[in-house]
């Protein structure tokens, strides 16, 4: 009897266990679904997975046009690698305006480590609706098929956006996302120091070398500049050279022009009129300049906010970069608003991006910062508010993009390593060229 009783209770108890396990499993599964459901199926049944492929395939104009009307209640998650609270607040304010006009609910979620967070979200199949994409990161994302191209008609007057910036977000002939703003490199200098040394603002390499030499004293270097490709590269452009050809299928560094440019830069460091920021105990060139350890530096728009905040008494001005033998050249650094190929609600995402990047949105966004609007039509209006930054805007005319091919980080790593070795006196320009070319050919092939 006892045996039967036991047997029965054993089964009963086992069943209970299995039920418990099943419940736990179901709860876990439900939680997993829940996350995705809130952004897609939950709020906007009409625009879920079923319609998404059709939108990108060609029906875009129609759906986008209609889409703006039914944004009420749509949840939109915007991710960005934020530069600070000022940017968070400015973007949140723009999103709030968008929300009050359309009834959508777009929220900005700043990310500490944007690339890592975004890659993980994309690989996990749960990407944010709209996210920042750095031009340097675009080839990786586009090559992986993670980005949705801009649907036709999603943007008003796309031709108004600077061609060099459109180019920066074009991969394999497809334009993926509109820039939110851009920055260029300019020559930032201390007018008082130049006056004291009796030199004019340099406009050519010869003048730059002479000015840097004249400005160099025991406590002040002529020019502080990071030893890395995103700075040294501008001298390549000014000499008519480049690291790669335009479609990044070939490394083109082994040319007399490139050699001349690199040698010019190397000579300036060797003579002590250029310094590496860390050599004067500064974290970056802007800090060295702000502390008065260098009279000039080559930096971008971001230095303006930094100087205003950290060195409010520092006097500074910006000029265009001095021209080299082949003319002018600078870098444009830019970030766009991207939409994932697997975006749950692409229509709403593009509607938001349109709002943020049309001429009105671009101007509203950039007025809060020192970055420049990506649209030519509003450049003048912006300049009226920031007349001292004209040199940065002019740079857009001849700026080169910052971005190469998937996996190109290794090559830039080799360039930077060799460039530092040159400054340390452990390598020559020829070493840099041969090492970089062989690394580049490895990666491209």
């Amino acid at each position: 009897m006892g045996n039967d009783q036991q047997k029965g209770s054993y089964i009963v108890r086992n069943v209970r266990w299995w039920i418990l396990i099943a419940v736990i499993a179901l709860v876990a599964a439900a939680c997993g679904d829940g996350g995705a459901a809130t952004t897609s199926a939950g709020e906007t049944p009409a625009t879920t997975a079923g319609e998404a492929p059709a939108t990108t395939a060609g029906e875009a104009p129609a759906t986008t046009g209609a889409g703006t009307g039914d944004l009420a209640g749509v949840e939109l998650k915007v991710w960005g690698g934020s530069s600070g609270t000022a940017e968070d607040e400015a973007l949140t304010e723009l999103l709030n305006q968008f929300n009050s006009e359309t009834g959508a609910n777009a929220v900005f979620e700043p990310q500490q480590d944007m690339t890592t967070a975004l890659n993980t979200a994309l690989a996990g199949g749960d990407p944010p609706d709209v996210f920042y994409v750095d031009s340097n990161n675009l080839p990786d994302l586009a090559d992986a098929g993670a980005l949705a191209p801009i649907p036709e008609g999603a943007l008003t007057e796309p031709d108004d956006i600077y061609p060099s910036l459109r180019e920066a977000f074009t991969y394999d002939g497809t334009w993926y996302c509109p820039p939110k703003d851009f920055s260029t490199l300019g020559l930032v200098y201390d007018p008082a120091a130049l006056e004291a040394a009796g030199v004019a603002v340099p406009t050519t390499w010869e003048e730059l070398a002479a000015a840097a030499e004249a400005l160099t004293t025991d406590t002040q270097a002529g020019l502080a500049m990071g030893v890395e490709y995103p700075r040294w590269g501008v001298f390549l452009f000014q000499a008519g050279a480049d690291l790669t050809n335009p479609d990044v299928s070939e490394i083109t560094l082994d040319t007399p022009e490139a050699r001349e440019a690199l040698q010019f830069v190397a000579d300036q460091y060797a003579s002590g009129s250029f310094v590496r920021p860390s050599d004067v105990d500064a974290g970056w060139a802007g800090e060295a300049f702000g502390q008065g350890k260098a009279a000039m530096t080559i930096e971008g728009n971001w230095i303006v906010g930094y100087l205003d905040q950290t060195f409010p008494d520092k006097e500074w001005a910006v000029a265009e970069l001095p021209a080299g033998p082949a003319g002018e050249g600078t870098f444009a650094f830019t970030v766009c608003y991207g939409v994932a190929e697997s975006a749950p609600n692409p229509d709403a995402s593009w509607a938001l991006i349109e709002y943020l990047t049309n001429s009105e949105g671009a101007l509203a966004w950039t007025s809060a910062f020192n970055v420049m609007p990506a649209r030519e039509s509003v450049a003048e209006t912006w300049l009226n508010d920031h007349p001292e930054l004209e040199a940065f805007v002019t740079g857009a005319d001849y700026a080169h993009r910052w971005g190469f091919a998937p996996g190109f980080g290794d090559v830039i790593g080799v360039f930077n390593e060799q460039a530092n070795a040159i400054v340390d006196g452990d390598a020559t320009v020829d070493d840099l060229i041969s090492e970089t070319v062989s690394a580049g050919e490895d990666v491209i092939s």
Partner: protein
Amino acid sequence: MNVSGGSGNRPPRSNLEEEKTSTTLKPPALGRAPHRARLDKREPLLGWLFSAPAVLGLIVFLVIPIVAAVWVSFRDWNGIASIFDSESVGLANYRELLTDDGVRRTDFAISLRNNLYYVLGVVPTQTIIAFILAVILNQKLLKGKGFFRTAYYFPSITSSIAITLIFVFLFQTNGAVNRVLPFQDIDWLDNARGVIHNFLGVFGVEGPAFLTENEFMGLELWDWLAGPSVAMVAIMMLVTWTSVGTFMLIFLAGLQNISPSIEEAAVVDGASSVQRFFRITIPLMRPTIFFVVTLGLIGTWQVFDQVYAGTQGGPRKTTFTPAYLIYFQAFTNSKAGLAAGIAVILFAIIMFFTWVNRKVIRDTGDF
């Protein structure tokens, strides 16, 4: 119900328990044998059932990730698209890291060299210092033991990122370290020159031809012998300072396990304190030393936080470590397959060194 609700499912483990069961179940002589037999049959299932939460956790968070990492290392995954869309590339990732001439093999070789010097520097130093501290703290006459224990252990429980950032300030050219040191200022975190190269340079040795002309894994033999860069030495000091406390505690626990009677017997036999330390303390501490060195090896081969927060691999890649390279390749260079390959090789390296360590400690022991 009552009967089974008692201890029916559990096999009797102790005599006491067996007696209890036998008194509750009547009649004991007849009912016991079949009951036991059935219990034995259920036992494995129930065992699994009860350990299921833990086993499930291990499978989800340990077994699957490890298997997945090995699997990914044979694929061309970019870390962005779905992993199932990636292509199988066989051994291509490993070839790129180990045999194919190219930038990735050179980078990997550089990271291995850096980390090897790092391990050679940190593991002995932290083990010896921790041991000495533990022996000092184990003295019966020492006052304020609690204070010292806390003080030494404190760095170990502080965030490594926070410590690194503070050390970055200390190691600035005009920072506290250079102020305290009597010789000329050193640019600690920006000096890429290897200390062995520097040392040989004093004697005018500048890379003999047979070392500069031959290379292994794309890196000149002379560069393999560079030694840790000054920046790496700074990181080594930082890490030693941080980790000594934990190992000191482990040693202290080991020392307190040694019975005072052994020590007393040695005193009676007329052994000096030095003899007692080398003939009694160290042999008896051998298992603890093995444990500490093994933990040290595993930890040092995985150094990441300090590099990430302190130097980002620079200056001139001299603080690149395999763990940092994994991060770089997987997250900023979209080469997750390659990164997984590095992880698997790193795992093999750690296994190898642990095995060597085990061999050495065992073979030299006489017990």
